[in-house]
């Protein structure tokens, strides 16, 4: 058990008086943690993400009127455009739900189709949002124009960034399904990813309401 090396004084202490790791040759892996621990941990992480967004919403609420002589929400938002974005994201969530059902039934082709479709919809959403941002910046209403615009870009942009990261995760997932099929570990990852995707949908509903709709009341 004791590792044989040339130890000096300090190393001797640490080695003798804190047991060394018992390194062994590899055996087949066994799931140590039940899925429930991972799932619970993921929910806790989502809660922290929720607090993160809550802070951004609070900041937006405080700064929404600070236009510093520039445009407010009602000046720059196009509700039709936002409606399209919303429909796209909600549809992607629906497809995501269908994909999970297909996964439970064990159908790999349907799962892949569902994942790719969700991804395409998500990517379209991100593309639309980025184009909206680019338009605003080009017209002189970028994020450095006023407190309102800073908070708008940051809140909506953070959501968009989360969606983009969700897409990266999705690509990795598709790779996992392609290479390992619907194993227990892949199923769990699918579940976690879909919870994340739905969470982002819920945040978008808050954004849609608080940022866009309320700008016109």
């Amino acid at each position, binding site marked *: *058990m004791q590792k044989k*090396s*040339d*130890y*000096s*004084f300090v*190393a001797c*202490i*640490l*080695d*003798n*008086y*804190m*047991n*060394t*790791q*018992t390194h*062994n040759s*590899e*055996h087949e*892996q*066994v799931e*140590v*943690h039940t899925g*429930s*621990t991972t799932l*619970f*941990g993921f929910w*806790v*992480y989502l*809660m*922290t*993400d929720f*607090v*993160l967004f809550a*802070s*951004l919403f*609070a*900041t937006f609420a*405080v*700064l929404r009127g*600070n*236009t*510093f002589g*520039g445009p407010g929400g009602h000046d720059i938002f196009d509700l039709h455009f936002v409606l399209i974005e919303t429909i796209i994201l909600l549809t992607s969530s629906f497809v995501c739900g269908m994909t999970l059902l297909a996964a439970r039934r064990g159908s790999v082709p349907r799962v892949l189709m569902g994942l790719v479709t969700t991804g395409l919809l998500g990517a379209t959403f991100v593309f639309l949002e980025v184009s909206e941002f680019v338009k605003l910046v080009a017209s002189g209403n970028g*994020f*450095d*124009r*006023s*407190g*309102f*615009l*800073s*908070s708008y*870009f*940051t809140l909506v942009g953070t959501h968009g960034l989360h969606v983009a990261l969700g897409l*990266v995760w999705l690509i*990795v997932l598709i790779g*996992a399904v392609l290479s390992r099929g619907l194993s227990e570990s892949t199923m769990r*990852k699918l579940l976690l990813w879909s919870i994340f995707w739905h969470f982002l949908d819920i945040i978008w509903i808050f954004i849609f309401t608080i940022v866009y709709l309320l700008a016109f009341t």
Partner: protein
Amino acid sequence: MNWTSFIFGKLSWSVFPTSPIAIGGAVFMVVVGLSLVTYITKRGHWKYLWHEWFTSLDPKRIGVMYILVASVMLVRGSADALLMRAQQATSVGASQGILSPEHFQQIFSAHGSIMIFFVAMGLMFGLINLVVPLQIGARDVAFPFLNSVSFWLFVAGAALINVSLIVGDFSTAGWLSYPPLSELAYSPTSGVDYWIWSLQIGGLGSLLSGINFLVTIVKMRAKGMSWMRMPMFTWTVLGAMSLVVFAFPILTVTLTLLALDRTLGMHFFTAGGGGNMMMYINLIWAWGHPEVYILVLPAFGIFSEVVSVFSAKKLAGYTSMVFSSIGIVFFSFVVWLHHFFTMGAGADVNAFFGIMTAVIAVPTGVKMFNWLFTMYRGRIRFESPMLWFVGFVILFTLGGVAGVILAEPAADYQLHNSLFLVAHFHTMILSGVLFGYFAGITYWFPKIFGFTLNEKYGRRAFWCWFVGFILAFGPLYILGFMGATRRLDHYDASLGWQPLFIVAGIGAVIIMFGLIFQVIQIIVSIRERHQHRDLTGDPWNGHTLEWSVPSPAPSYNFAVLPVVHSRDAFWAQKDAGMKSPIEYTDIEMPKNSALGIFLAALVGLAGFGIVWHIWWLVTVGILGAFAVFIVRTMDDETEMIIPASVVHAEEERLQFRGVHSR
């Protein structure tokens, strides 16, 4: 943009320090660092350190590393404190002291940031890693790899704040960087950026640990350990981790928004441009107040363990201790405005927060009385953990009175931002958080290392800290009443403040001797370890499960996972005296991993890149970190098996060190 600014960003030859003391500090740090590296290389220890420590996912190893790094940062933070005391004792009238105003302001900003984020949080997570899995009868935490990532992110944050001593400068805006002083207009140098990113990186590690230990305590307790059978330390850690999970995302956002202001010209908190600096203050304290309870709750938990064991009694009022901890967790979210009563929120709002602040004193007072009643009808051994407790009761209570005074808005108008305030919060943090962690380190040291710490030097250290504290901070309470504000680098001779500052300086020196005694204590204890071996695994006659395993604890903690039937589970086991035959089984433990180190190193490099606008480095760092993370998630073979025969042999080996009853 030319090639130089693309590769090096804003770096230039002028980033190196120019004042003698700053150069001295940087050189000292570099020399110490290089000496350590040289020593390790010469002795050929890198392989050992890499395999046994750096890549280990064993929370006991990670815990020791946290405490070592935090102790090093404590030395740096204390050096800052001594410089500050020296300046304020000498910078009177015609003399400008030993530091320029800008340098002094960097030093107190670094002092506060280091002490909170890298000393207190580091010691806390160190102790939590060492103790919680053992106390709940588990073998590991819920997410061992994440645990390693958390630790190395902590190191990356600490590294970044230390790099600021050599390359560039540090923030001069205080440990919380209020805008607009911390905005680009008033702080154009790299200082505030270093502050933002070292805290952001370290804070990310803390948030991940919060999630990790919350899930661990909720999901991985031994069979039969219901909520009301958990040890008090575990309860308070649960409370603290709940606070981490809710509060740290607020810090993440606030730091990011300030960074966006500074880096992309946004207007969250700028003066003008539609910024609202008061929003920053609300956000930062919405994190900041829970933060101080994050730090002190585990210390309260440690005192509960120490007082009951060293009084040879059950903890008095366990139920009310649990509920007062829960109460503190909830209330800590509704008091944040007491940090800025003077910002003009109006009487109704101020009064509400003042009342809530007074209310939170009740559960703390209840704990005090329960600890005292634990001593009642006990057989109290005043070994150094108990000395730290007594020092805590005396000083923390007095500091708490100061806090109740400050909780009254009308009183706070006269005392806010004065040295009275500084004395108050140092009293709470030193006598509460630090004394508690010191007691915990002494108490649990034998479990981790297999021998007890030298008691003589432990007592000397305590007395130096206790007396030193009174001399260092007593005068500050008085100075607050004399109208002395905090953070002054100079004052008039006619004010009569200098004698008090000199006494405070002497106190700081005495505290320094306390630290020196603690270092001597470690060295002497190692030398004398054979005389003080913990042969039974239970050197203090403990009550909780960690004392049921041999000392030092094996990597898998428990050869057989315990089943719990009551509170103070180990005490119950000892009473029952059962010696059932042990059935050894294969044990599954995580394999080592270097990916945590790589991930944190990449994040650290990205942080450095953001500070100096080296955008290619930021991109490489962030993308690289993601890549490492994805690689890890694709790895399905992260566990290894320790066969039952090996476990059996290890247990036998540990048994031969002494009698051990189960």
